[in-house]
């Protein structure tokens, strides 16, 4: 019965809904800017936007203007980019590795980022010359590099069924790499951090958009766009992996270069996001599954749908993190996990039933 219900739904979506994507995104950004401890009327927001973007000259309260432009809008834009990037990385990894549990942090990126950030913050490496973000970025790349080398070593000399073997090797290497870097992080914290520092680091690790400014957006926007373009360009290659790597190869996909390029691109984009906002969990896992449920598994639809849903989900989570407990900002990772875990369970159960 479910088939009869879901399939026409998937068809009727077609590609016609693509045109509403920018509208939904803009609406989400405005909501992210309007809602907060002090709510700001939408008219005021539109005036500030017109002043900045169109060179208009409306008179707006300077404090409101500052909050809107410098704090909330930049924060919403970065949240959108981050949500888009994590969701797309999830889409790509789940497609390529044929594993529904694959998520952007599978490749050791969040663990490495934590170690990098902690090394800079606690152990004082770089003596102030390195920012927390840069430390996290370097840590993420280092850890990803180790995972890739490990996967490559585990995978060399393997013959038949290479697609399955390679995907398994990447997942196992990712787990090993993550464990190693998590242990390093714990080691550094217990050895040298004070209780206050440890709390601050915990807060950062769970994802934090509080310190985000336009400078971060200038990094996040190009990174997210790059991720989106790469995914859209390779949407047919991603489709070809439906029956695994061997099947993709028999349909003309140069599996090794395409898979390598896509994974590296997604790792870079994820590393950029983690270095800006910390490791926000569950977005990369839940959004692709939820979108597959709604628009189907074809990447022509799945990629734009996941990009949009990831952006809206993270802007929404950020709003919740600011208003849920008055006078306190919760780590956004707490919100995404609180929503994401039950949502994931629901998708699993309903998916099984259908």
């Amino acid at each position, binding site marked *: 019965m479910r088939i009869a219900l879901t399939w026409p739904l998937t068809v009727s979506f077609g590609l016609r809904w693509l045109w509403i994507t920018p509208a939904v995104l803009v609406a989400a950004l405005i909501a992210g800017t309007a809602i907060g401890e002090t709510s700001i009327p939408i008219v005021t927001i539109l005036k500030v936007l017109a002043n900045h973007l169109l060179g208009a000259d409306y008179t707006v309260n300077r404090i409101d203007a500052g909050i809107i432009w410098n704090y909330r809008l930049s924060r919403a834009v970065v949240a959108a980019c981050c949500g888009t990037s994590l969701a797309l990385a999830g889409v790509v990894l789940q497609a390529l590795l044929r594993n529904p549990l694959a998520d952007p942090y599978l490749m050791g990126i969040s663990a490495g980022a934590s170690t990098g950030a902690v090394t800079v913050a606690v152990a004082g490496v770089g003596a102030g010359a390195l920012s927390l973000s840069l430390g996290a970025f370097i840590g993420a790349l280092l850890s990803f590099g180790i995972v890739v080398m490990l996967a490559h070593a585990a995978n060399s000399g393997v013959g038949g069924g290479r697609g399955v073997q390679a995907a398994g090797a990447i997942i196992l290497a990712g787990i090993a790499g993550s464990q190693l870097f998590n242990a390093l992080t714990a080691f550094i914290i217990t050895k040298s951090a004070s209780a206050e520092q440890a709390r601050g680091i915990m807060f950062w690790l769970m994802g934090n958009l509080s310190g985000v400014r336009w400078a971060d957006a200038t990094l996040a926007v190009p990174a997210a766009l790059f991720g989106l373009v790469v995914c859209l360009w390779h949407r047919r290659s991603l489709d070809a992996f439906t029956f695994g790597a061997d099947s993709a190869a028999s*349909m003309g996909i140069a599996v090794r270069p395409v898979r390598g390029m896509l994974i590296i691109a997604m790792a870079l984009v994820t590393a950029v996001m983690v270095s800006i906002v910390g490791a926000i969990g569950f977005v990369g896992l839940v959004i692709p599954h939820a979108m597959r449920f709604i628009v189907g598994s074809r990447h022509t639809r799945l990629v734009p749908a996941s990009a949009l849903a990831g952006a809206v989900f993270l802007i929404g989570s950020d709003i919740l993190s600011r208003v849920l407990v008055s006078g306190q900002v919760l780590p956004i990772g707490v919100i995404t996990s609180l929503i994401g875990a039950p949502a994931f369970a629901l998708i699993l159960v309903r998916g099984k039933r259908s």
Partner: protein
Amino acid sequence: MRLTAEQLDWAVHGTPLLIDVNLTVEPGQTFGLVGPNGSGKTSLLRLLAGLNKPKAGRVLINSQPLHSLKQRAIAQSIALVEQQADTTDRVTVRQVVALGRTPFLSALRPWSEEDEAIVTRALHDVDMHRMADRLWHTLSGGERQRVHIGRALAQQPKILLLDEPTNHLDIRHQLSILELVRQLPITVIISLHDLNHAMECDRIGVMDRGRLIDSGLPHDILTPNRLQQTFGVYAHVIDDPVDGKQVMRFRNAV
């Protein structure tokens, strides 16, 4: 297209799976590959499809070495139906068959009416057009196999490689798939377990422990002696009184 294998060697972790395999299949021929389990049929098909590189020797299509071609160019000529290929994705029958058009599509060559027509034709060829909108995970094993064959046909290959395609199929669909394959005006290499089905091929080759030990006309190859030596069964050939064709009857294992 002519498909040639020259002195192919292939090994995994030091275990030789193919040893000095030489084979030529003429354009338009249906070549049956038979042999006991583990004799190297699947390995040979993977090498012929360009999925694995041989340790030694080479594969040629017409006179062009396979390793000099890009994966995309290979896929425009050769289609492979694997033995087991499954997915947990929510895809429909039509979407799976449409994947066969992948080697012909690009950013500059988007999906067209022609692709749509080819997919519809392939769905009809494998008798799955009435189930085109069914989801993959609701299909039986035999239906999935037919969809895979449909996907390969949508690739419009000049050479079609099939790895035991009649597994999971009921007898009606076994016969209709074999009939379809024989009628295709392209080169087909098909591995089969049912030796009576193999008798219908233009030529057959017998694999045993990684070697292609014999090839030629089915009647010349599948003799009681060969069945005993390679397949380990006592069998004899009887004439079907209806159409005069020869049928093998297997009595017992050696």
